[in-house]
Every structure is written in C-alpha cells, then in structure tokens.
C-alpha cells in the first residue's frame, strides 16, 4: 500500500431519518401520502468528520452516549453508508462490534464457526482448517457438535470472540477492550486483543476506559454530538474529555 492511509474519512456525515410520528406500515404510509402527511425528523449522528488512520496507528475515540461513536465505527466498517462525505478503506476490514450476530442457534458450534467466519468475509475452507484451533482457544472443543442454543451466554461470547480474533485484518475496529468470561479467560482475551491491535493494522479503538485507551492509542479524538471536539495526543484528549465530563456531570458528555 503506497501513501494511501488505510482509513480515510472526508467530511463524513451520517443522518438518520426518524419517522417518529410517521407510519410504519405500507397501508398507513399510503394513507398518509394521500394526505401529504409524511414527515421525517432528521437526526444528524455524525457531522463533518475528517480523519485518517495509517497502518500501525491506533486511533482512540472517546465520547458520551449518543456522541456518534457507534455510527462512526459502522461508517468506517462499511456497514452504514455515509449520507455526506466519503469513507475509503484499504484492505480487509474486521469490526469487533456486537460480536455473534449471525450465529444460527440450531446449528452446531462447528457449523457456526464456518458460517460466522464466512459472513465476516473469510473463506470457508480456511475456517474449516482453523476450526479445531478456534474451538480450543474458546475452550469449547467438547461442545463443538452440540447446537449452540444449548450454550450459555458466556460460551457464546467466547466462541464469537475466538472467531473474530482469528484474523489478520488491515483495518481493525474495536468497541471496548472486551472482558469476556472468567478472570483467566478475560486476561487471555485482553492479551490477544492487544496483540492483534499491535499487529500493524490501522486500528480504531472506542472505549470508556480512559486510562486503558490513553495507554494504547497513538492518537485520540473526542466526539460530541457527532462533531470532533478535539484531536491529538491521547493523554491530552482523554484528560480534556474527563475534565469536561466533571464540569457537566448531568450533560450528554456524561459517560455511562
């Protein structure tokens, strides 16, 4: 990859159309349309975000609930097309957001590893080759041939994590440094995640754990109401964000 950054956002905005009072059925919509009643509220989740992340960089993102962090992650991951501006990413993208979407409860662990991996864009043949190792890592080898609807939520989380982490992406999007399972597994998954983040990919790390973020990130941004408030050194950005949060404890900069 030449000079192109792995992630480039130029003037990116994402607006949702909120049909709060609007119809949610086709029949109602048709009726409203004849009365010329169809109205949407616009909800701008992200406004004019311009940023670049190069291979080997870890961009930390802080901000309160509803600041646009999730929308930013989904826009970079290519899940949500921006309504303004442009998102360009180079290379294989792995988004560790809400893991486990795409599991089929009636299928076995073995089948789900291949299925989930395929949905994440990895060749099924590769997944079949990696299957045993993934299962061993998730400590689920003995449950591989059981339908996963019998799994506990902890087992599901471990399986989803083990599949997602078995990857070498060029662009990595991480929502919280996940703490999964018991203490021992949690330490192991944290280490694995750190290794993946330091593996040379362009990383976007979103976290409420400010010290952990400041320690890992090479650069940070602070999002508020969809705008980039501050960009720069992670320690400076997290401190500024923490200070603002103390000033306005009831405001929407308040982190959960």
């Amino acid at each position, binding site marked *: 990859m030449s000079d192109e950054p792995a992630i480039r956002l130029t003037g990116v905005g994402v607006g949702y159309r909120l049909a709060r009072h609007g119809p949610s059925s086709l029949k109602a919509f048709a009726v409203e349309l004849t009365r010329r009643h169809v109205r949407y509220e616009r909800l701008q989740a992200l406004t004019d975000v311009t940023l670049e992340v190069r291979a080997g960089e870890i961009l930390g993102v802080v901000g309160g609930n509803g600041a646009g962090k999730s929308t930013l992650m989904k826009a970079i991951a290519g899940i*949500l097309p921006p*309504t303004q501006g442009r998102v360009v990413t180079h290379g*294989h993208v792995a988004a560790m957001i809400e893991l486990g979407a795409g599991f089929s409860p*009636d299928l076995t662990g073995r089948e789900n590893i291949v299925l989930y991996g395929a949905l994440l864009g990895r060749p099924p043949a590769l997944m079949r080759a990696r299957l045993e190792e993934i299962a061993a890592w998730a400590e689920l080898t003995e449950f591989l041939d059981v*339908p996963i609807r019998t799994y506990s939520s902890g087992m599901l989380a471990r399986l989803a994590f083990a599949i997602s982490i078995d990857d070498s992406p060029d662009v990595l999007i991480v929502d919280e440094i996940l703490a999964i399972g018991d203490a021992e597994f949690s330490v192991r998954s944290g280490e694995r995640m750190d290794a993946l983040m330091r593996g040379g990919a362009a990383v976007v790390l979103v976290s409420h754990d400010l010290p952990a973020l400041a320690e890992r990130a090479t650069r940070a941004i602070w999002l508020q109401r969809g705008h980039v408030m501050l960009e720069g050194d992670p320690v400076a950005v997290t401190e500024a964000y923490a200070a603002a949060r103390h000033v306005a404890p009831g405001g929407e900069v308040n982190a959960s």
Partner: protein
Amino acid sequence: MSVPIYDSAAPSPSVLRDARATWRKRSLLRVLVARDLAVRYKRSVLGVWWTLLNPLLETAVLWMVFSQVFRFAVPGVPYVVFVLSGVLLFNCFRQTLLGVAASMFLHADLLSKVRVAPAVFSVSTVGANLITFGFTLVPLALVMAISGVAPSPAAPLVIVVVLLLAAFAFGLGLALAPIVVRFPDTLDLLAICVTMIGYLAPVFYPPDIVPQRFQWIVHLNPIYHAVTLFRELLYGHGLGDPLSWLALVVSAAVALLVGHAVHNALRRGAFTVL
C-alpha cells in the same frame, strides 16, 4: 490477490459486476444455502428425510383435493399429474419470491452489524428453494409413474424453465426487499398478490376454461407461460411454444434489471430510517 477497497462514494455497480461479485462469493453462498436447508429441517426428527417426505405429504393432500373433490377434464393426461406439476412449480415461485422479499428484513440485525451485501441472502434463498424444488420432483415422478404418464424426452429442459422462473421471482423480490425492511406489512400484501397471480394462471384449471375475451389477461401472466412450458416439456410432445419461451425470457430479464436497479436505489436508505 488485490487489496479490497471500500469506497462509500463509488457508484452502484452494474448488473454484470454484481453478478461477478456474487459468483466470487460462491463459497459463502454455499455455506448459507446449507444453513438455510439445515435450519429448515434440523428441528424435525426425520432430518434430511423430511425434504423428501414433506413434498410427498403435500402431494398426497393435493391429490386428495384435486382428484377426489374437484375435477377438471384435462386432455391427454390424468388430472392429478396436470395439477401437481402446476401447483409444485407455482409453489416454488411463491416461496422464492416471498423468501427473497423477506431476506433483508430477516437479516436486518445481522446487516446492521456485519458488512455483507444484502443480496447475498437473497441469492442463497433462491438456491435453497431450487434445491427444495428438486426434491419435490421425486414425488412428482412417482405420481407420473403410477398414473402411467411417460415423461417426454425433452423433460430435462424443465430445469431451464425453473431457472427462468426463479430469476423472475428473484428480480421482483430484490426490488421489494428494501421496502419490506421499511414496511414489514408489504409481505402480507405481497402474499395476497401472489395468490391472485396464481388464480389468474392455469395452475389448477385447464387454460381453455377461460373465456376467449379474457385470454389476453392469462397470456400477460409470466406464470402462465412458465407453467405451460413446464407441462409441455415434462409430458408433452414438443419443445413448447417459442412465444412462451420468449415471454418467459423477457420477463426474467426485465425483472432482473429492474429489480437490481430498484434494490440499489433503495438499499442505502433502508437502514437509516429509524
């Protein structure tokens, strides 16, 4: 291997480019079709045998209703064979269309968390339905054998008819899929429309009971051409009316092109309306 590039500002790809991209994803599609079929039959005790038994039982019901209760005189072939071939093909169309239209809605949760082209689920639905239809041909062949109807030498060509009909259903479903995400009740309306289309085609009645002055309505219906060709090839004597072939090919092509265009135009907006 080239580096995959995602550019949100890239224009929507053409039908051909999308077709090629879908072909490259065939290993993912194979996994999804296997999942669709597995999920459909895994819960039953009989497992895979259900794929065979299910159409067999359906056939038994149809046979009961249409050979004992209703009766139409059909020239040349026992009524059971006539009705079964029509109904099975029409059911395939119905299930493919409804399945494709619902595919984005059913995977809405996944589509908001993982980057996959929504069309992948539409294509895999078609695949699963075609395989299921293949299984229903077994009881159809059985009924034909019992009724003493010899298959035509041209019978293998029915595959082409089924594929064209599936392409027609796929195109229509593709256009509707983003609309169903926004308005789930579209599916109910669609189910009613499909039933209506079914009654307007000679699926379980012979085509000539329709009065002459309404025949043109029947002939406008692509299902009519598909069903007629299917029967002709299965147990008839010729290769089917060239005009029916033309009508079916044109319907499939138009549905695919229009469906693709509408799908691309509406897809982006489907998930940003809350």
